[in-house]
């Protein structure tokens, strides 16, 4: 008799304890969607590891290494990050296949930093209909900042239009009344810049911009366009080109003995692939804008952020080429994701990840320029919107002035 009641009491107590434990966990509000649990967060990614844009594959490798570092340090809120990355070869059909594999077969929580405008366009509709976050896409097109129509897609780097607006703002302040000529590539990349510049000048656009000259990517050389622009005699030349044509433009203007104020896009600001081929003596005084620190620049040797970056590279990516901008980019993007996942706490649902990604306040990854801060809100899906002007001097870029903001949304 006694033994039976003891058993009963024991069973009752166990039940009570079990119930308490359950409600305890309910009180802590651990919420998960597919791809997250008590020990792991699954993050998906696609990158062009092969194909025409394979140079960018370093970004994926850097992010992979970054999450290894995070996991070695104990993970995010005690959970390890499982970074699954696939090759899309910069081909939209392959991107769709790989992203569907990530979502339906690997069952990731989010798709993070997929690279390339065509690939991202191809997967945007699918991810939004599946309500899977397409976080911090690696492209500069402006259309990613569209919270109303695509609430599951958010950008990361400054858009081409923001950058162009910054040039226009700077010119209006520093060179009021200057006659401006624009050379742009005749595709969405060039047209984004063109639109940004006009928006930046506002009602002064018509009087300031005296010439818009476009070229096709298929043209072998753009010398004739430069000669034509010189004939109009502008004071400022805005160079909205890809690297090869950027180098040609700087070289040709020097050959013509023409010295307008030249501003070149951040895309073509590479010292190795643009400034050196154009000739350092020809490139003196050329302006551009930047948002990230240059790993090859000695001025950051004592910068605490870049010290962490170098430490990370030495341990997790030994032998990496520190002049490669992709290492800086991948580190910054991965750090942003880590911050968002940390902010999510124990509520790892896709909706909450999106909510947290859209509530970053003055976040500064280690590799961004001082003063460049990541800010997002429910209507602002353009995380980085600030850049700082820089001038080419000797064999490297020198930053000057304040950071300028060019926050814009797509209509």
């Amino acid at each position, binding site marked *: 008799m006694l033994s039976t009641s003891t058993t009963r009491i024991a069973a009752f107590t166990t039940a009570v304890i079990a119930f308490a434990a359950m409600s305890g966990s309910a009180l802590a509000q651990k919420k998960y969607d597919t791809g997250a649990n008590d020990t792991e967060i699954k993050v998906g990614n696609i990158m062009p*590891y*092969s*194909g*025409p844009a394979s140079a960018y594959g370093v970004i994926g*490798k850097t992010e992979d290494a970054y999450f290894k570092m995070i996991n070695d340090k104990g993970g995010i809120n005690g959970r390890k990050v499982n970074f699954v*990355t*696939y*090759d899309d*070869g*910069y*081909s*939209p*059909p392959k991107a*769709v*296949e790989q992203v*569907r*594999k990530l*979502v*339906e*077969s690997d069952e990731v929580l989010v798709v993070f930093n997929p690279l390339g*405008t*065509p690939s991202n*366009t*191809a997967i*945007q*509709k*699918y991810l939004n209909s599946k309500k899977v976050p397409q976080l911090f896409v690696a492209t500069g097109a402006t259309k990613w900042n569209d919270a109303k129509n695509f609430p599951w897609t958010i950008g990361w780097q400054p858009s081409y239009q923001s950058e162009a607006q910054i040039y226009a703002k700077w010119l209006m302040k520093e060179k009021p009344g200057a006659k401006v000529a624009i050379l742009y590539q*005749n*595709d*969405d*990349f060039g047209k984004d810049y063109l639109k940004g510049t006009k928006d930046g000048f506002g009602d002064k656009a018509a009087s300031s911009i005296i010439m818009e000259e476009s070229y*096709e*990517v*298929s043209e072998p050389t753009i010398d004739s366009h430069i000669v034509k622009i010189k004939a109009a005699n502008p004071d400022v030349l805005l160079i909205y080109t890809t690297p090869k044509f950027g180098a040609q433009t700087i070289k040709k203007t020097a050959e013509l003995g023409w010295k307008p104020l030249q501003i070149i896009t951040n895309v073509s600001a590479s010292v190795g692939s643009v400034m050196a081929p154009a000739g350092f003596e020809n490139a003196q005084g050329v302006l551009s804008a930047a948002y990230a620190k240059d790993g090859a620049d000695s001025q950051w040797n004592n910068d605490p952020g870049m010290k962490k970056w170098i430490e990370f590279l030495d341990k997790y990516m030994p032998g990496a080429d520190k002049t490669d901008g992709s290492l800086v980019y991948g580190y910054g993007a991965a750090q942003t994701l880590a911050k968002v996942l940390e902010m999510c706490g124990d509520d790892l649902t896709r909706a909450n990840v999106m909510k947290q990604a859209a509530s970053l306040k003055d976040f500064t990854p280690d590799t961004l320029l001082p003063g460049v801060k990541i800010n997002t809100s429910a209507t602002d899906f353009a995380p980085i919107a600030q850049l700082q002007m820089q001038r080419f001097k000797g064999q490297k870029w020198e930053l000057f002035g304040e950071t300028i903001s060019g926050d814009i949304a797509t209509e």
Partner: protein
Amino acid sequence: MSAAEDVVTEAPAVEAVPKRAMTLGLGTSLVVLAALCLAPLFVKNFIIFQMTMLLIYALAVLALNILTGGSGQFSLGQSAFYAVGAYTSAILMEHANMNYALTLPIAGVICFAFGFIFGQPALRLSGVYLALATFALATAMPQLLKLGFFEHWTGGVQGLVVTKPDAPFGLPMSQDMWLYYFTLAVSIGIYIASVNLLKSRSGRAFMAIRDNEIAASAMGVDVALYKTLAFGVSAGITGVAGGLGAIAVQFVAPDGYTITLAISLFLGMVVGGVGWLPGSIVGSAFIIFVPNIAEGISKGLSGAVFGVLLFLVIFLVPHGARQVAMIAQGLIAKLKN
């Protein structure tokens, strides 16, 4: 003809394939068909999507197989026809609001015309020279699609987003599954038509040209007509495959149709067995899944791993899936005895 010319024209000669060896037996065909029909009922949507892509690429490989295995002409320009088909479907669906199923025959007809016209200058070229001429077509296509002149329709570099069709008549199946069965029906239709084409008078004319052009013309075959016709048929089927591809992927952009695609299709044909139509699906599986397997083995060296796998296939079974099938057939025959 000089010795040097001889070598060049002889080099890519395709081994003659007897007519009955171009297809599978009835029993085997039915088993494969049953597997293709039933498999989607047991797998996830993502696998169904991959199987749809498998069929689509199989169609494109089949088209190349008719051209190379049938009439003995080479093409590295199939990606261009695929792109034209894809864009035709996408533009008709998005700008003219046409039903997706109706866009496919139009894509096929436009590509047939395109291939037929391209076949005219190609008549003067043979072997590696023809391969190079078609190669030029493949490299030119992505840039042509980006031209500002067409941008209003093609969407330029941005490409076009295509709406995926729902299952009709309120059928209780997912979009992926419906599209799979739709693609399967189209593929079976085209496969049967292709087999019949190669068994017909025209098919015999193709093969006669492949085996010996001079002998064929002596027998009264209009060499010029049949060569261009082969190009047209091949381009037409590739165009239908392209249209289906656009609907399945829901997106077309110039970067999806580069020379890499043309080379993949060529690879698929060789791996599947030149001139063996059922091999097309094996070749298609090779170009879809082997890169994924290679990536699984090593991310950094995926290209090298793929190369090694490809090398092994070519070295061990130079006639591709056809050879494997023949060996299997031989073994089964032995067991029966």
